[in-house]
């Protein structure tokens, strides 16, 4: 549904069509939930191709036995809510949850997804635009500003994260930052999980939602910031506005911690991350780089890789290729969700809600998506081969035809029709 | 008794004392002496005709000599092969009578005279025997002339010309014909057709055409700067004169006309009716009709005949200067704009006549048809209808090379010119 709206935005805006136009087509393509291959199969592929395996968090990986698609769909083991996040993953609606069947030792991070777990993450192509997430609902009927809906989810694996539930103990704060604004405005937590966080996007540019949880556990303050970035660009409209939005800072100075996706060189409004791309992220604390944060990139399939941010707070990942369907089922616009999680501890002391703490545990998440690399399905060799072959064939044909025409006389014959 | 009878040997009289020379002499004297204010630069042409037609001076040429019987033979190709074209069409009454010895009396004077000339011992202009005669298959009489010329011992090449010019098929056919003609010329001359040769040849003709067009444009002036009889003499010289010399002479004439224009010179009275000449071509010395018009006080300001305008007016356009394209362009130039009545449909001729009438400020049109030239005779009707509709007076004159209808013709032409004057008076 949201994809359709996107189109309408595009239509209404009526102007410069840009780039490779996925945006126009986005949304209509739906892939069955069973379209995702089993992980065992994937692992096999991985092994066969010698693909660099994302170095998963040891504990997490150990707890992630391969599951079949069927299991995945119906798996409903409740995730333990023993982790730090104030919003804990509770799997009350087992059948619908994307939660992992195995026990989840560290309940996982809270993050913002553009689809609820029931739909099966990433199975819908073209849901997100740009580096952020797409999928907008039409706001208030036709003609209104586009609307976006996000669902807070919990878990370290994009596919297997259930709905995040409000934790009474924690202080949850949701902020929506509109393009070009340096401060956010509070957003209400939905009453129903299914409803998600909905907001309108009247302006063009990057909307960001920060879901901040603060919770004191003993003398340790746990601060987690789940962030989602939604690019809202129409086709046409005010080009200056677009350019401004493209250049506007995309971090929040008041955020205790956040991850900012660094723009690719030459990136335009309708950017789409492709597997194989190198993508840099910045970990910022109150707008300043945070060095030494442990940053994990979790792919759609749950493979992850960890790195530590440098003095600029920068960390670079190469997006893994983890999409191996049958040829007949291959979707080049398959949009896989990915998740970046940054964690840092600081020996800061202070008091929170009249209780003092001596250290702070920071956690930031940023969700995103990527698509199969064109290299996976585009072939230069074939293209050039066919092209050259035809050039050669036609060239020779023309040459021969001309040779034949030079002959002085062509016989005229009639059909022996009765 | 018998000793009184003796065989009297032939005493060949010099050419300049022949009847033929006298015919040319009379016409030239008429052209030169009976009109005042002849342009100074016309002297080149007067002299040229005196030398060639009255004294029988021999014409020099480079390379092989290729005779042409029609404007449809692409002269650029002949030049490109290092040969010299000469147009054999003849206007002499003397040769007309010679031709009548072996051709039907009803056939057209032009063909009779041309073949009569080729069949006589003294070919004038004195060009010598052509190494080849190109005979485009135009009208029936020219077609049949082909075999006759062969029987006279000439090497004849039939250049196949389609009878329809609108269709694409005939265009392609004609392009092939022209290519084959080039091939024949290659065999004849043993030379190769190169881009350079052809470009040089086309430049020659192009320069001549540009000079002709300038002259043509001067004739738009009213009152006229030059008389039609001189213009016809100029274009007639193109038949046999060296193209370079001819062009230079015409360019000189043009300069003089430019000066005349500046000086406000009038070659005729302002009220002289302006006449467009069309139909069978006046060829020296048969300038009977144009001369009658101009001595009766009219002036021929433009023409649509294959001895002048049709021969030199239409220019070649080339897109790619490659041999193939140039040859095809030439073929197009010789077919598409041609307004010869041999073509099945000939709307172009009517349209061109109407355009000439309006752009040359013409008062009336004289349509000459040689008796026996069926195509011109037949086309008269449609032309007359068109002119009638447009309200343009037209005088149709059926005649031949013989001078005996001069008296009657002068009455008709005078009456025609009088009616033109009257019309003008009334319009004023």
């Amino acid at each position, binding site marked *: 549904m949201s994809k359709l709206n996107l189109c309408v935005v595009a239509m209404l*805006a009526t102007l410069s069509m840009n780039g490779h136009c996925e945006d126009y087509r986005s949304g209509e393509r739906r892939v069955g939930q069973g379209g995702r291959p089993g992980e065992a199969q994937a692992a096999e592929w991985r092994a066969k191709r010698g693909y660099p395996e994302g170095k998963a968090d040891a504990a997490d990986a150990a707890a992630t036995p391969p599951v079949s698609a069927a299991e995945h769909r119906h798996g409903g083991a409740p995730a333990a809510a023993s982790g730090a996040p104030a919003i804990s993953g509770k799997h009350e609606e087992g059948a619908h949850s994307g939660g992992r069947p195995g026990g989840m030792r560290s309940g996982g991070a809270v993050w913002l997804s553009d689809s609820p777990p029931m739909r099966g993450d990433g199975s819908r192509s073209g849901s997100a635009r740009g580096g952020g997430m797409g999928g907008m609902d039409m706001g208030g009927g036709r003609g209104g500003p586009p609307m976006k809906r996000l669902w807070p989810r919990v878990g370290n694996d994009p596919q297997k994260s259930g709905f995040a539930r409000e934790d009474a103990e924690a202080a949850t704060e949701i902020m929506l930052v509109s393009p070009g604004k340096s401060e956010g405005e509070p957003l209400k937590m939905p009453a129903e999980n299914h409803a998600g966080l909905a907001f309108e996007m009247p302006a063009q540019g990057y909307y960001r939602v920060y879901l901040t949880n603060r919770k004191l556990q003993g003398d340790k303050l746990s601060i987690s910031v789940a962030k989602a970035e939604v690019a809202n660009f129409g086709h046409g409209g005010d080009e200056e506005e677009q350019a401004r939005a493209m250049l506007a800072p995309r971090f929040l100075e008041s955020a205790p911690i956040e991850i900012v996706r660094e723009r690719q060189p030459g990136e335009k409004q309708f950017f789409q991350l492709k597997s194989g791309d190198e993508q840099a992220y910045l970990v910022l604390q109150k707008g300043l780089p945070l060095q030494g944060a442990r940053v994990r990139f979790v792919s759609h399939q749950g493979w992850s890789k960890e790195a530590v941010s440098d003095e600029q707070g920068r960390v670079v990942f190469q997006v893994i290729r983890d999409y191996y369907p049958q040829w007949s089922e291959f979707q080049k616009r398959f949009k896989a969700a990915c998740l970046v999680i940054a964690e840092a501890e600081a020996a800061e002391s202070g008091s929170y809600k009249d209780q003092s703490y001596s250290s702070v545990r920071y956690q930031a998440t940023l969700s995103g998506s990527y698509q199969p690399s064109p290299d996976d399905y585009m072939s230069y060799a074939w293209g050039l081969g066919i092209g050259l072959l035809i050039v050669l064939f036609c060239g020779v044909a023309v040459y021969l035809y001309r040779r034949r025409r030079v002959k002085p006389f062509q016989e005229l014959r009639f059909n022996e029709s009765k | 008794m018998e000793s009184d009878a003796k065989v009297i040997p032939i005493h060949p009289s010099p050419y300049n004392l022949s009847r033929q020379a006298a015919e040319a002499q009379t016409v030239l004297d008429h052209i030169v002496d009976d009109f005042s204010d002849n342009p100074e630069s016309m002297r080149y042409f007067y002299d040229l005709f005196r030398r060639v037609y009255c004294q029988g001076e021999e014409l020099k040429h480079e390379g092989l000599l290729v005779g042409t019987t029609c404007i449809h033979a692409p002269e650029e190709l002949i030049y490109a092969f290092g040969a010299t074209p000469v147009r054999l069409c003849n206007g002499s009454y003397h040769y007309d009578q010679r031709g009548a010895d072996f051709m039907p009396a009803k056939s057209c004077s032009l063909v009779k005279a041309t073949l009569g000339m080729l069949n006589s011992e003294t070919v004038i202009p004195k060009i010598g025997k052509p190494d080849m005669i190109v005979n485009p298959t135009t009208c029936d009489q020219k077609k049949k002339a082909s075999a006759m010329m062969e029987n006279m011992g000439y090497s004849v090449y039939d250049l196949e010309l389609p009878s329809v010019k609108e269709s694409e098929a005939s265009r392609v056919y004609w392009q092939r014909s022209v290519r084959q003609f080039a091939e024949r010329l290659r065999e004849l001359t043993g030379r190769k057709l190169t881009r350079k040769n052809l470009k040089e040849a086309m430049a020659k003709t192009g320069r001549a055409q540009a000079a002709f067009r300038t002259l043509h444009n001067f004739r738009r002036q009213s009152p006229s700067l030059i008389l039609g009889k001189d213009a016809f003499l100029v274009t007639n010289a193109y038949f046999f004169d060296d193209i370079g010399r001819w062009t230079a002479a015409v360019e000189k004439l043009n300069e003089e006309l430019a000066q005349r224009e500046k000086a406000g010179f009038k070659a005729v009275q302002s009220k002289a009716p302006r006449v467009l000449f069309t139909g069978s071509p006046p060829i020296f010395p048969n300038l009977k009709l144009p001369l009658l018009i101009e001595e009766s006080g009219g002036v021929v300001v433009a023409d649509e005949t294959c001895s002048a305008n049709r021969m030199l007016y239409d220019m070649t356009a080339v897109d790619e200067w490659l041999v193939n394209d140039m040859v095809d362009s030439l073929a197009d130039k010789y077919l598409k704009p041609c307004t010869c009545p041999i073509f099945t449909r000939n709307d172009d001729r009517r349209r061109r006549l109407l355009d000439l009438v309006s752009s040359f400020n013409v008062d009336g049109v004289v349509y000459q048809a040689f008796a026996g030239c069926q195509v011109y005779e037949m086309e008269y009707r449609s032309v007359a209808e068109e002119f009638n509709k447009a309200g343009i007076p037209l005088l149709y004159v059926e005649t031949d090379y013989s001078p005996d209808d001069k008296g009657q013709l002068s009455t008709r032409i005078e009456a025609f010119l009088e009616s033109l004057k009257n019309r003008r008076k009334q319009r004023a």
Partner: protein
Amino acid sequence: MKASNTRLQAVRDAVNRVDLKNFRFWFQIVAFVLFVYGGYFAIDLGSRLPFFSCGYNDEGRAGICYLLPLQHQLSQPWPRLFSLASIAILTGFLTFTLWFIVLNKGWCGYICPLGTIQDWITALRRRIGIRYSTYSESQFEQLTKVKYLLLALMILIPLGVGGGLFSHDVSPPFCLICPARMVLPAFTGDVSQFTIDFSSKTAMVMTALGIAVTALFLVGSFVRKRFFCFFCPMSALHYLLSKPALLKLKKDGNKCTRCGDCYRVCDMGIKEIADDVTTVNIMTDDCTMCLKCVSSCPENGTLKATFAGIPIFESTEEGFIKRMGKGLQHGK
């Protein structure tokens, strides 16, 4: 008043004497640079351009060919298409028409980068000394309809896509087979279009078709002048809109001698230009308004290009003789 008139006449004479070949060559180069590399100079003329400034040339383009957004607009789901969204289609079309009206098909002969490339390929062939091919009259009559067929398909297929009848992999159908999609990006070093997309059967067929058409384009424009323009659906669309255009090609049939010089040089091989003496607005659907016909017409004022009724380039005898004389001297 009189002085300004003579001055104007002098300017006109100078224009009519111009060496069109040279002028056009440089004009086309400038236009090519503008529309293929203009993006690098931050030039953006919008997405409603009436010629092949290919949108796939991501980096360099200074604007986008209208066919791309048109096909996209038409391929939206029907409920959207038949609602408010159609206003966007109309406004887009209007913008396109406004662009088009300025230069009429002059866009084809002077601006279109794909046309320019074909002219360059032709120049290459000419330099090598290979003659060009032409269509016979019957071939011409058959093939000239192809562009209308392509135009119809270009509209119907996206509609079918929007209605769910065809896969999205065939959208935008014309762009997928348009040689400009491959050729123009290549000029900015982007050869990513020269690939076969194996992601689905439809995509495979369409990309293979695109490659095939590009290959045909290269061969075709080598042996025939302006090979592709003959099949260009943009050209068909142009012709349908050409009535109110400002730039016009006019012919005075009364002055025409039907010498065929214009037909001779016509890249498209349009016979009407020479043979039709009744039509005043002589531009046909195949015309690219290159004005070569005007430059090679030896009759004063028979062919002329007018802008909003004002003659800007007329055929003259003088100009003709000058231009042909130049051709004759060249390489002597």
